[in-house]
């Protein structure tokens, strides 16, 4: 992992952990605050409901008391104090009075509990009202289940007794029972805070009945989702709270608080269900999450930027130094690093620049030294090469002078012999000079299509006689040729390369040995190996082997392998040597096929220009 990535990871983790920690803390605090507010709102709503319940109960009681004191009630009580009872005049009386007093329920009931007139069920005259608590009349309003023609309803009731004086069967009295229905309108009267709602469940039947759920805000989407909760509260008969997931959307969730409401017999007549929407909380949580994500994203972006900036500040000089080091490795020793910073990096850059400066100076010094050494070597070689023919020349001339002075009679014979020797040595000198001249004027290769195997065979054929010649040890020659295919090259120069390598190998085996020539074919290159089983070379010798005028032999100009390297290089190839002392030497020449340098007719110029 790079330094830049490490920095990025560290920065990102730091930002992420910080933001996540803040988000979690804020979420927890928000949830607690919401729950606290929710509890307070629920408690306030319950208190409001109870207050409203009491207020309406008092209102109903007042209305019922007003009805009991009215002329109509007196008229009814008087009429039913007589023996002959006639319901007809009062059939619609209760409804009319109930409408006037804005009551949903109103019944006039005689002392035996028989309905005289009913607003909610006019047809029920003459029938008993079994639900009326005639024994001990409650003083305040109470919950009561009321039978209706189309079902049942729960109402908040009040009852008043009217004494009608002495009747035909003793003390006579009637009852006025009035009430209001616990319906949507009743619950709608509650002032609900935003996000809260109140529902009412009428506990008429065993088991949960969706029809018994009164919701002023509309029927819940799926009332069955609170069935278990309702039944649990009815069974436990105490307040309870649950979280209802109405839909898969968490914003639709609702905290439901159930409060049992009891009738006169202490039975649970219904449940007040206070719902508190969790939408605000979910939205707040969503906002926190969004803010967290935003902050996290921004933090990550910032981390990237910061890490990039910091990494740039820190790693750019390092990267420049690394790049400069690579340049130096490639030979560009004049590479310099420009670092505009201070501290260790700047010190490192100065050191690097100083190092390259030193290297350059060292190289130039070395070049100068090598150049001097080369000149010295050349001078030594030239002196050596020239000294060998000069010494016979000197001897021959001295012999001529001595013959002229001491033996004039033999002078002609000696002169003839000496002149022959002089000419031979002068020719030898000319040959030496010619080789040096030839090396300096190495021709550019003329590319032709050729088979490297053919060249190998020609060279082997040329030296075949010398391998087993008289006066020298036998050298066995082995040729292993692969199918190298066509390539382009200068046949004469390459022949010279192979000849030089083979002659060198033969020279390396004065005691005989094995000469092996191998060819290999690669997709774009062809290689030739020339192996000998001679004495081998030391690593130092290997390093200097291709240096001009260097030779490890007792004779030779030291230009053979230099010429080989020059020719191979002109073909775009390479020559290498591997050798170990006493284990022979292997020269490997790798040549590119250079087919692209062939002219359309099979010939091509070495400058790559196509001749038309």
């Amino acid at each position, binding site marked *: 992992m790079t330094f830049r990535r490490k920095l990025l990871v560290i920065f990102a983790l730091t930002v992420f952990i910080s933001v996540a920690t803040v988000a979690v803390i804020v979420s927890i605090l928000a949830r607690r605050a919401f729950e606290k507010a929710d509890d307070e709102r629920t408690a306030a709503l319950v208190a409001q409901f109870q207050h409203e319940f009491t207020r309406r109960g008092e209102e109903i009681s007042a209305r019922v008391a007003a009805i009991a004191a009215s002329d109509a009630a007196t008229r009814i009580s008087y009429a039913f104090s007589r023996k002959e009872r006639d319901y007809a005049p009062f059939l619609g009386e209760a409804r009319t009075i109930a409408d006037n007093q804005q009551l949903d329920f109103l019944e006039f009931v005689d002392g035996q509990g028989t309905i005289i007139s009913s607003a909610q069920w006019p047809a029920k005259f*003459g029938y008993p009202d079994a639900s009326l608590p005639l024994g001990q009349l409650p003083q305040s309003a109470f919950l009561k289940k009321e039978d209706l023609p189309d079902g049942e309803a729960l109402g908040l009731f009040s009852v008043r007794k009217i004494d009608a004086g002495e009747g035909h069967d003793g003390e006579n009295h009637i009852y006025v029972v009035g009430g209001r229905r616990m319906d949507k309108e009743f619950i709608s009267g509650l002032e609900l805070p935003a996000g809260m709602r109140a529902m009412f469940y009428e506990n008429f039947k065993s088991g949960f009945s969706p029809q018994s759920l009164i919701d002023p805000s509309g029927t819940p989407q799926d009332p069955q989702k609170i069935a278990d909760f309702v039944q649990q509260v009815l069974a436990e008969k105490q307040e309870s709270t649950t979280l209802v997931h109405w839909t898969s959307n968490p914003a639709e969730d609702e905290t439901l608080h159930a409060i049992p409401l009891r009738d006169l017999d202490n039975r649970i007549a219904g449940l007040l269900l206070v719902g508190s929407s969790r939408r605000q909380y979910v939205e707040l949580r969503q906002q926190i999450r969004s803010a967290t994500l935003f902050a996290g994203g921004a933090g990550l972006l910032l981390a990237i930027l910061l890490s990039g900036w910091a990494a740039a500040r820190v790693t750019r000089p390092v990267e420049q130094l690394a790049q400069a080091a690579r340049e130096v490795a490639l030979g560009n020793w004049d590479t310099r690093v420009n670092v505009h910073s201070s501290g260790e990096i700047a010190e490192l850059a100065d050191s690097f620049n100083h190092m390259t400066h030193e290297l350059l100076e060292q190289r130039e010094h070395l070049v100068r030294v090598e150049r001097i050494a080369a000149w010295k070597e050349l001078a030594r070689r030239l002196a050596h090469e020239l000294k060998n023919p000069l010494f016979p020349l000197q001897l021959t001339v001295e012999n001529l002078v001595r013959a002229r002075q001491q033996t004039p009679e033999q002078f002609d014979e000696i002169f003839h012999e000496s002149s022959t020797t002089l000419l031979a040595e002068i020719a030898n000198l000319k040959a030496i000079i010619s080789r040096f001249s030839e090396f300096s004027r190495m021709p550019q290769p003329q590319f032709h299509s050729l088979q490297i195997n053919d060249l190998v065979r020609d060279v082997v054929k040329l030296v075949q006689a010398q391998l087993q010649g008289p006066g020298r040890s036998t050298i066995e020659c082995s040729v292993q040729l692969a199918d190298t295919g066509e390539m382009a090259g200068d046949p004469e120069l390459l022949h010279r390369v192979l000849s030089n390598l083979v002659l060198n190998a033969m020279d390396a085996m004065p005691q005989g040995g094995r000469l092996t020539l191998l060819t290999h074919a690669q997709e774009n290159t062809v290689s030739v190996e020339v192996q000998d089983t001679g004495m081998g070379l030391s690593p130092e010798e290997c390093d200097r082997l291709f240096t001009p005028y260097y030779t490890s032999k007792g004779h030779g100009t030291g230009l053979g392998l230099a010429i080989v390297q020059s020719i191979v290089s002109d073909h775009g190839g390479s020559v290498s040597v591997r050798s170990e002392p006493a284990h022979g030497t292997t020269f490997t020449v790798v040549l590119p096929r250079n087919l692209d340098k062939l002219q359309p007719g099979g010939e091509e110029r070495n400058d790559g220009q196509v001749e038309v």
Partner: protein
Amino acid sequence: MKRTSLLWLAINSLALASLAVASLTITTVARAATRPHYGGVLRLAIAGPVSSLDPADASNVSGQTAIQHIAPLLFNTLTTLDDRGEAQPSLALAWKSDFSSQHWEFQLRPGIAFSDGTPLTANAVAASLRVANPRWNISPAGDSVIIESDSAARELPAELALSRNSVVLREGGKLIGTGPFTLAQWEPGKNLALSAREDYWARRPFVDSVEIAIGRSPRDQMLSLELGRLDGVELAAEQASGTVAGGRVVNSAPDELLTIVFSRDAHSPEDRRLRQALGLAIDRSLLNTVVLHSSGEPAGGLLPNWMTGYEFLFSTSPDSQRARQIHEGINQSSAWNLGYDQTDPSARVIAERIALNAQDAGINIKPNPAASPDAQLVRIRLVSRDAHVALNHLAISLQLPAPDPHRASSQSTSSQSLSTADLYAAENALLQTERAIPLLHLRTAVALARNVHGWSEAQDGRWDLPNVWLSAEKPSTEKP
């Protein structure tokens, strides 16, 4: 004689003379107030919806009662029924039939014209009757009309007295009659204005015109009556026993049947017994006295007692215990929907009371005006004072099997009028189907202002408007 005595005698004589003149004047005014006289606009209101004035329009079911009031004002029938339900001449002077009572000839009254002046002809009568009775073979024969039916039609003269058999000249969508009034203005479902015909063949109506407001609520009607904006209003049954401030209520004999009608025949003996149990469970008397304020009579039969004389034979006493025993003896649970007319203010209470009574017997009935009912609470007006005709039409209205008195009794031949025994047998046969449970026979009533005179208190509640006249006791300038 002293001079003072003479003066005293003269004063006394003058006083006596003045008294005599005053008495004569008062008597004359009083006699003028009670004597019928022509003129005035009679303003009435009826609650029932009337969308068409054509008495033969069978589609106007809900307005049949109103049409029975209005049709005789515009149209005449060949016969009319007297208070005993006997057919009397109207547009037909005389009639006769063959032995089988399938071929009848009605001789038309001469010199009668429609309100547009077109003379009444046998062709016009035949064309009109064919509209209402497509199954009859009706043909004109000079000044007579021949009516032939597939079966014996012994009550045909009474049948022809029905409003639906009014003689109507139908020309280009107009309905022209020979009745005492002619159409002046007609807004379907809202207002109807009639003008008295000066050339009416019987006698010109006393009032100059009649204005009838249609479809107004009973409350609005009564309010308008008490404010003097109306002279007469049709009352709901439960209002029949009431009183009207500054006016009077005229009741008919019970001429409307309140009954439960099942939508289909009893599908099993248990179902039949269950219906019997329901009939026993219902306390008709309380329904009548409490819900309908004694505006009717408990009904055990389809026809009222004043029409048949035997209705008391059908029991109307509730027997909840017996009903419960019957129900408990039936291995069948019942849950009937009882439909009723939501526009009828009493219908809901009646239906709920029936449900309560049924509940006492263990029978489950649910009043529900919206649901498809198993049984329906209906009111059906008796269309004729002729018991046989009324029974026939009751059967048709209740979708009961047509009564066949010939099969029910062998005492009458086809040429003889049907006897009371035949009628009883036919009615009893209808009741035996258990398709209908009669509850009450209700009166129809009209509340009239004090200035309305001559209103006939007919048993069947007919409006005999030609004989109605208006006094000047209650001047009124407001329009209804």
